């Protein structure tokens, strides 16, 4: 396997220009959507089947009473342990040689289990194609040696594309720098491959707690409980079976008598 590719989104550099969001739409030919009122400059409110990159505009109250802008260009995390990939019953969702997660549109049959299983609410169902959609990490571009459209378009290098190990080193240095500048809450999200979901191949530098950006503090693989749930169901089956046996059993007769 090739070295894992990644995108590092440094939110401290984001100016909210949305070049990434537009570049993503253009390159991937994602159609127009009716905008919705979100109460901020952010549009759309959530990822959709036609919005794979989404700049979040978060207003955080400062101790002085003012509001501070927290800008974050959000995207599919291409998790090392991906809920959508585990959920897919058709094999349509697969991991590429670069470590990214893709949906094969020719195989997906639209069962929507992946939609229910993404801990970040990324995967979305497209009514027109009848399939699940999400960021492809611009698979067509990276197969041809180009970076993802969003990273290419970013004018401030808030979105960086490269080998994961290189980017993690860079990101760690950046956190130290920012902390020195007084950004006490500066932290990486998903950079640690020993951390949640085995690490994210699209990871982030945040300036506040993940929950402030609407991110789960410690997302978990949704399938982790299937074995326990199954065993509890078997236990329930045994009790139900015993009850029915008691109700139907003929005293003094063997099972074979009729």
């Amino acid at each position: 396997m090739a070295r894992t590719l990644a995108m590092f989104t440094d939110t401290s550099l984001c100016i909210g220009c949305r070049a990434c969001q537009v570049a993503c739409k253009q390159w991937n030919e994602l159609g127009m959507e009716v905008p919705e009122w979100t109460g901020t400059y952010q549009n759309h409110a959530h990822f959709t089947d036609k919005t794979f990159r989404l700049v979040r505009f978060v207003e955080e109250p400062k101790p002085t009473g003012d509001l501070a802008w927290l800008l974050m260009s959000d995207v599919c995390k291409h998790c090392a342990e991906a809920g959508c990939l585990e959920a897919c019953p058709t094999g349509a969702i697969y991991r590429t040689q670069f470590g990214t997660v893709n949906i094969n549109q020719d195989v997906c049959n639209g069962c929507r289990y992946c939609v229910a299983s993404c801990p970040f609410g990324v995967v979305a169902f497209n009514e027109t194609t009848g399939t699940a959609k999400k960021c492809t990490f611009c698979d067509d571009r990276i197969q041809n040696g180009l970076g993802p459209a969003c990273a290419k378009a970013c004018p401030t290098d808030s979105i960086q594309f490269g080998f994961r190990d290189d980017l993690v080193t860079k990101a760690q240095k950046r956190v130290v720098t920012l902390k020195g500048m007084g950004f006490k809450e500066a932290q990486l999200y998903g950079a640690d491959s020993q951390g949640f979901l085995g690490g994210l191949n699209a990871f982030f530098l945040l300036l506040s707690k993940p929950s402030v950006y609407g991110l789960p503090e410690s997302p978990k693989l949704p399938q982790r409980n299937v074995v326990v749930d199954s065993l509890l169901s078997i236990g329930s089956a045994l009790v139900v079976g015993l009850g029915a046996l008691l109700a139907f059993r003929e005293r003094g007769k063997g099972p074979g008598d009729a």
Partner: protein
Amino acid sequence: MLKSPEWEMMIVWYFFLGGIAGGAYFTAAIADNFGSARDRAVARVGYLLSLPLTAACGILLIADLGLPFRFLNMLGKFSFWNPMSIGAWGIGVFGLFTFVSSLLSFSSSPERVALRRKIGLVGSIFGFFLASYTGVLLGGTAQPFWGEARLMGALFLASGASTGMAAISLILFLTGGAAGEGFGKVKKADRYSMILELVILAVFLALLGSAARPLTTGPMAPLFWGGLIGLGLVIPLVLDFVGRRARALTAVSAVLVLIGGFLLRYVVLMSVQA
């Protein structure tokens, strides 16, 4: 912000009918193997009921896909711990069992009866599977409440058994088979299942705590407390108790159990997605 899979009425019906099919088949197999000759009607009704219901389940599942003509892609791989994958396989296998058992339910030759009994016991495993895996499937998602509900599969199984038994007793009542001893036995087994369902439901809610709020408070609360627990579990148990000699009352209780089984799937699916 999580996304709901938009599993709506077709899936509610699928969960409901799958529970009845699995429960009815397993009840039939128990009656067939361990009951008396007078319980034969229970076995036949149970087997014959599970066949069309399982077929309906398959049709509902396929129709709910974004691209129904690609349903065979579900069988493109077999992932043992993936409920959606193993579920597609499980419905197919269980469908075969219901078909063979239904055919054999018309036979009275001793060899075929013996074969039917053995097939019934093995098929019951798949019946239990169909009744419960849907709960495990919800427990394996990232959705609030579903993903935290450890006993969803166990709960669906108890409800599936109970609704399957209620469906059999109702058919026996409507076709005049209620005079037989089998009717009383199915109702008795149904009472056991309902009591188990209530116990599981209590533990389910206790374990979930505040995570159960989409169910216990808000728009779904009247259907949950009044519909499922009141109308679908407590009242049928009371009716069965006071009306042990009045078969019409126990038939009413069977109808209520079926309504309760439907409401369970409805409130669970819709509480998160509404």
